[in-house]
């Protein structure tokens, strides 16, 4: 890992179009600003890790037998109609997916 010393107002350039700025340095932490192209997602590590854990624990590897019971219990509680519905934000008009 590259380790460099930076002061407030200084930055690091990574590859094409990514820049990491040191905005301020305080007793409780360092404020970092990140500039990146729009197709490069930037996340806090702990936020990313939380979703990694959630996604991995939800992915099915072996056949899952109890799904139809779960589906029918959801059908009884669901005020909305069928699944795979698309609701336009700000409108009430749903559209069925393709």
């Amino acid at each position: 890992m590259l380790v460099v010393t930076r002061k407030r107002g200084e930055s690091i350039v990574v590859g094409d179009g990514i820049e990491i700025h040191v905005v301020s340095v305080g007793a409780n932490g360092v404020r970092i600003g990140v500039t990146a192209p729009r197709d490069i997602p930037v996340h806090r590590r702990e936020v990313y890790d939380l979703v990694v854990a959630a996604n991995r624990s939800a992915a099915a590897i072996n056949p899952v037998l109890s799904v139809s019971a779960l589906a029918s219990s959801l059908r009884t509680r669901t005020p909305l109609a069928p699944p795979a519905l698309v609701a336009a934000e700000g409108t009430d008009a749903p559209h069925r997916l393709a």
Partner: protein
Amino acid sequence: MSGAVTLVMHSTDLAPIETPFGTFEGRPRDIVTLVDALPGFEDCRQFLLLSSPALEPLTCLQGLDASKPSFLVVDPRCVEPDYSCRLDDLQRRRLGATLDTPLLWLAIVRVADGGSTVNLRAPLVVNPERMRGLQLLAGHDDYDTNHPLG
């Protein structure tokens, strides 16, 4: 490499797809391409949305690349009728969507004997007109990644 998955990629007809959640008929037009990979499954960008009457309101989201992960997803409003989530302008542009584009929201379900849960914190959002999607990692801070289901 599953033969059934390969078949649907080259066919315009319905093709049977075997998943951990049953066998479905897949259609090439129901393939979603993720503009950012799902965290934890960075090797898979293409997913097939698979529905069946027995599974409603759940939908199977079957990965087509590399590790081919299989998920169950549900419209978050089936779980929390008042659920709403917002896309920022950048995310909307990356999906090729405008403010008027109807969007498909999908929360990932974790099926477990002790009680299934649904990730209402980090939903997937798909622009059905372009079939482009992404997962909002901090989509809704009020909800948990393992919100009880049922």
